[in-house]
């Protein structure tokens, strides 16, 4: 157990090191004078400004020293300051993380509560119409990109039915109903591919579980099918689901970039797009490292969740 935890922590640190090094190199390896790239296109380029930036970023130091300095600052939560917005990057993240986090977790939540029953149904009715039709629907969902779903949802619920706003964001502090009204469509759009991926996974795991001897012995006890499905078969069938939720979290965060842009949501993803279009490299760097950190953290949490689900691992 102790060894397992140690290995996981080592993996976490290694991942963060690689990701941070790569993002750091992104600004360091830009062609020409990095100051030229780091300064926004609109900023003045007189010698005094350039010298100030060189000094602030320590660009005269050798590359390894620069990385160490930058990483040490990053560890303290100082990711630098954007030369475009003049806001510190950590303030930007603090400001925008709640929005993106809410979106991502809502999407995962929606995906799981939709996918688990669908997957169970598919396995329980393997090969019958319930299974084939839901499998076909999942196939379609899987092949439609998130933003297309998003546009469709906007068209249906905002334009046609006029039930929900098509864009903008109300924070939870503005009231839960208002918040849900602005978050439900983007979260659903984000969830659709996940629903398809998760439900197929639950279905195939569940089919395997239902062949287990302990399911037969539960049947021989005269328990109801539904009880057997949810109280005996679901847990053993959800181990890989938990893993895939963690792995897919990266894709989900990637999806927020597009969906936030589409719905004009002031989250981290939207900010990242802005940073890219205004060549705000320090912001790109900071946000990317932060997202990588979250991703690694989520996967560590998944490992812990594993221990909760399967008592056999707890011992080992």
């Amino acid at each position: 157990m102790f060894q397992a935890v140690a290995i996981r922590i080592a993996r976490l640190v290694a991942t963060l090191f690689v990701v941070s090094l790569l993002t750091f190199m992104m600004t360091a390896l830009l062609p020409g004078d990095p100051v030229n790239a780091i300064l926004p296109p609109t900023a003045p380029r007189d010698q005094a400004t350039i010298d100030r930036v060189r000094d602030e970023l320590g660009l005269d130091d050798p590359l390894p020293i620069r990385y160490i300095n930058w990483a040490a600052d990053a560890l303290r939560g100082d990711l630098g300051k954007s030369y475009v917005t003049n806001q510190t990057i950590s303030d930007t993240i603090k400001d925008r993380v709640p929005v993106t986090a809410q979106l991502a977790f809502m999407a995962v939540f929606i995906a799981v509560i939709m996918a688990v029953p669908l997957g169970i149904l598919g396995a329980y009715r393997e090969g019958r119409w319930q299974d084939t039709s839901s499998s076909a629907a999942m196939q379609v969902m899987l092949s439609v990109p998130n933003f297309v779903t998003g546009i469709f949802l906007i068209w249906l619920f905002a334009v046609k039915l006029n039930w929900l706003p098509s864009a903008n964001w109300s924070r939870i502090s503005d009231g839960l109903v208002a918040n849900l009204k602005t978050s439900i469509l983007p979260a659903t759009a984000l969830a659709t591919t996940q629903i398809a991926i998760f439900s197929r996974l639950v279905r195939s795991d569940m089919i395997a579980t239902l062949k287990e001897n302990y399911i037969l012995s539960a049947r021989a006890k005269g328990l109801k099918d539904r009880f057997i499905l949810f109280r005996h078969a679901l847990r053993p069938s959800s181990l890989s689901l938990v893993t895939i939720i963690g792995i897919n979290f990266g894709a989900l965060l990637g999806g927020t970039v597009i969906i936030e842009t589409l719905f004009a949501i002031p989250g981290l993803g939207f900010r990242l797009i802005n940073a890219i279009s205004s060549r705000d490299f320090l912001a790109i760097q900071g946000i990317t490292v932060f997202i990588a950190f979250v991703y690694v953290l989520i996967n560590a949490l998944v490992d812990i969740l594993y221990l909760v689900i399967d008592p056999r691992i707890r011992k080992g």
Partner: protein
Amino acid sequence: MAAAPQSPRLTEQVSEDPLLVVEDLRTHFKVEAGMVKAVDGVSFTLDRGKTLGIVGESGSGKTVLARSIMRLNVSPNAITTGSVRYNGEELVGKSAKQMQKLWGVEMAMVFQDPMTSLNPLVKVGRQLTEHLRYHLGVSKKEARLNAIELLKSVRIPEPENRFGVYPHEMSGGMRQRVCIASALACGPKMLFADEPTTALDVTVQHQILNLLQKQQEDRFMTMILVTHDLGVVAGRTDDIAVMYAGRMVEKAPTKHLFADMRHPYTEALFRSIPKTSNPKHTRLSAIAGRPPDLINPPPGCKFSPRCPYVQDRCRSEEPQPQPAAAPGHSFSCHFPVGTPESRAAFDANFEAGLPQTLAAAGEIVATEELVETSGAVN
């Protein structure tokens, strides 16, 4: 306790009719190559409170038979025909949903492998009580008390502490005790035990078998004990049925079977009982030849390709069940063991150098020694 399952027969009129009447039961599996005739025309009756042992080598259809009786045929490609009357009620044709009312409550099953027949992610306590609560509406607290009693009755030490434990924290023997306790929880009248000890250590096997026997007697249950080992059923059953290729080729009260076995396959099985000097319960490799193809069985007697007594008649004409001397003893064979005809057939085959006959001749000496040393024959 409102739902004490221990002694339902005190209040109930005990009927004299047999509890189980099986007639011409067949279970065939549809596969690409044809129909697997796993159970192919089995008939027998089983009286209340009696134990029937079903023996036969691997693949002879024992498990399929037990599950067909219980209507627990999970695979969708199974087709069961014939009749199973349980307590006067026809079971063949009942849906799984209808059977759920009987499963656990009226009839229960102990499976072969206790390592896989308990859910590894569910605490032992819940697996012992869930059906008790569901079928009999027992409260959580009462179910717990009941389960602790059950664990005591299957001799699990410190039953209170086992309640919140996961199966992997117990040994194989303990788990099989839990499985037995779970099967007994709702006080079933009929218990199926499908090779309940095959997966266990030899030392534990006897404890578990004795435990099953004691519970069966204490609770006046009717029991079907499935095994591939004649030695297991020897002292523990009232009747023994020998299965070969989906049929019961011989059935007799246990004593008569051992004293006067008539079917050559029974004889071969008996010869393959592990010698007392070699207590390891090996699989029945001792019988020469392979079990028959259940899709295209040989014509005539299905045992004919392996039988040391086989004659031309056996290969064309399928033997029908016929009564033996003792009441309740029947067999299906043209040249039953112990008759002059069978001796002549054996000698003729020996002369002709039929491999299975030569193999059998080599083992007969050993068998005679075994009969003397084996306390198995009661």
